[in-house]
């Protein structure tokens, strides 16, 4: 027996990695699919794979401060009597009261109002707090119709018809009951504490031809005043955008797979819907083919994190972007100062995503009054406003460097890509070359 035989280094499988092994064990134990919040977590081609060119001998930058770089955007110019005017091209995406605490919704309203932008209700209806604290409020019209009523419809500044969202295009199914508190139950007309089964389709229309009739009804009820947005997940962005326009949308919202959700099946989040970067050019192309670019506005969401992302999305043709996950982080979600509590929950700061359990130590994705008390809506609102301001300044800095007096003048030709995938998706050349994969026959 020779004890000097060297052993090979223990090697884990890339296919059966730690996460996969733990998931198989969990499934075998519980017999139910894994449910979590947030958006796609795996590495995907994204805005980081794009770079701006900036100023050069042929292109001259604008001076900061003195030489203005505009950031305002008007949404809903197509049909609405009262389009929405925002100071910045960044809005707060739909997140429900129910998935978020009342304090969190109030904080979002405070922050957005300070920054001159809008918030959006979610799958649970409009609360008085949110309408009170948010100067511009978009009211979501979802398959569930929880809390939907004509009075709130008329109080809204815009209506967002949700066909799908990036985390779960075609989603429905079942969510667990821990967060259906008294107030949530009352707003949604559900018994307290039970699992909530969500519909995946609207109850009274299917298809863009019938959606058109539904939009007409919503406009009749609201005297044709409010812009109507149509929100889709990143499924078939070209056709979806074209059909949204044909149905009569004022604004199209395209949400890529990095877009978050309160809770859905993990497999849905990671394996259905396209990355945000892959959705933008097709959506813009559809608008251009219909002669509607800038006439029907495009809002892009799903993994927008900083001013560079904002600038890149606008350069690719979007009119504005929307943030969800990032807004919650600005409020205090997944903050390291709560690490001890995250450890108790079996996770760590930055990884916590079991929001459906309602035990969020930050008091944001919970209905527990003790936890929710931890969030100060004024302070958190201030933080959100700061973050929005930084993103705006960053986008302006980039735009000025590219010689633009308005962020909307950013264009694809201001960009290059670092990878072949990003070049193909964004339809901009690979850096150092004139190659756009898929164009001109190669």
């Amino acid at each position, binding site marked *: 027996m020779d004890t000097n035989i060297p052993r090979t280094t223990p090697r884990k499988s890339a296919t059966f990695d730690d996460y996969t092994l733990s998931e198989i064990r969990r499934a075998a134990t*519980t*017999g*139910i699919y894994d449910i979590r919040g947030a958006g796609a977590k795996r590495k995907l081609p994204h805005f980081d794979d794009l770079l701006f060119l900036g100023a050069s001998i042929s292109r001259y930058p604008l001076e900061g401060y003195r030489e203005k770089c505009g950031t305002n955007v008007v949404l809903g110019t197509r049909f609405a009597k009262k389009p929405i005017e925002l100071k910045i091209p960044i809005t707060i995406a739909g997140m429900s009261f129910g998935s978020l605490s009342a304090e969190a919704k109030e904080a979002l309203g405070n922050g957005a109002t300070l920054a001159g932008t809008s918030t959006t209700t979610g799958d649970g209806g409009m609360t008085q707090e949110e309408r009170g604290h948010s100067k511009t409020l978009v009211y979501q019209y979802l398959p*569930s*119709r929880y809390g*939907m*009523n*004509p009075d709130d*419809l008329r109080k809204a500044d815009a209506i967002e018809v949700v066909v799908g969202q990036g985390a779960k295009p075609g989603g429905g*199914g*079942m969510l*667990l*009951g821990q967060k259906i508190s008294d107030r949530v139950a009352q707003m*949604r*007309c*559900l*018994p307290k504490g*039970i*699992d909530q*089964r969500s*519909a995946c389709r609207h*109850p*009274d*229309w299917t298809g863009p031809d*019938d959606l058109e*009739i*539904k939009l*007409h*009804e919503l406009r*009749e*009820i*609201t*005297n*044709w005043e409010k812009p109507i947005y149509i929100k889709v997940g990143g499924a078939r962005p070209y056709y979806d955008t074209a059909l949204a326009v044909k149905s009569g949308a004022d604004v199209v919202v395209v949400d890529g797979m990095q877009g978050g959700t309160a809770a859905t099946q993990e497999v849905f989040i990671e394996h259905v819907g396209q990355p945000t970067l892959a959705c933008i050019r097709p959506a813009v192309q559809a608008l251009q083919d219909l002669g509607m670019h800038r006439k029907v506005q495009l809002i892009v969401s799903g993994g927008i994190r900083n001013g560079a992302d904002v600038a890149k999305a606008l350069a690719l043709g979007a009119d504005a972007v929307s943030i969800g996950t990032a807004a919650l982080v600005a409020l205090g979600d997944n903050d390291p100062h709560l690490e001890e509590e995250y450890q108790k929950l079996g996770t760590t700061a930055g990884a916590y995503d079991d929001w459906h359990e309602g035990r969020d130590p930050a008091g944001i994705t919970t209905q527990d009054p003790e936890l929710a008390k931890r969030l100060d809506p004024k302070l958190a609102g201030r933080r959100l406003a700061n973050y929005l301001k930084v993103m705006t300044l960053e986008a302006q800095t980039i735009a000025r460097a590219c010689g633009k007096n308005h962020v909307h003048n950013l264009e694809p030709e201001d960009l290059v890509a670092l990878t072949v995938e990003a070049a193909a998706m964004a339809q901009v050349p690979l850096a150092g070359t004139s190659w756009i994969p898929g164009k001109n026959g190669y």
Partner: protein
Amino acid sequence: MIEIDLEKEGVRGVNSRLHSLPKDTNERHWLVKNPMGQHAIACGLDAPITVEIAGHAGFYCGGMNKQAEVIVHGHAGPGVAENMMSGIVRVDGNASQSAGATGNGGLLVIKGDAASRCGISMKGIDIVVGGSVGHMSAFMAQRGHLVVLGDAGEALGDSIYEARLYVRGKVTSLGADCIEKQMTEHHLAKLARFLDQAEIKANPHDFRRYGSARKLYNFNIDHADAY
């Protein structure tokens, strides 16, 4: 009674007139002529008025109704009285699919048949159907009542929450978590009241009651087939 010609005024014209009425208006009785199957007629009303529609209505007639009484002297298209909050909508003829969808309150009376998805996702509305209802009726019905004098199609009350269903005729099949339940004096009395309000004659004792088995309220792996 004030007559208004939809062919002349258009849907926008008709709805603007009705929406601009103050809540204490004296103009309380309206007749809409020549509806021509147009959509969204008398939607979004919010006043104690009566609006009669002299003919067939298209989609979403009486949508999101509050307080008003809307009477369709003919058939109604998909989504009649969808998301109604209060008031009454009556259909003399048949209603198409998704009648009373997501309704929160009020009473919807359909003298003829309603098609599929009658009362889908209902949240407190009461619906009385003189004829039969199609498949997937009372799908995800949360609260409220559905009374059917005729038959019910496949998957009645699939994924039902706390709504109560009363059917006199045959039920082709029951949906996930929907079962037949006992009729007590309390239920018979309630049913009698609905029939009365709907001005439809029938004997409550001829009906059977259906509702949630409540097995899907909290996940259990053994019921995974139902999802």
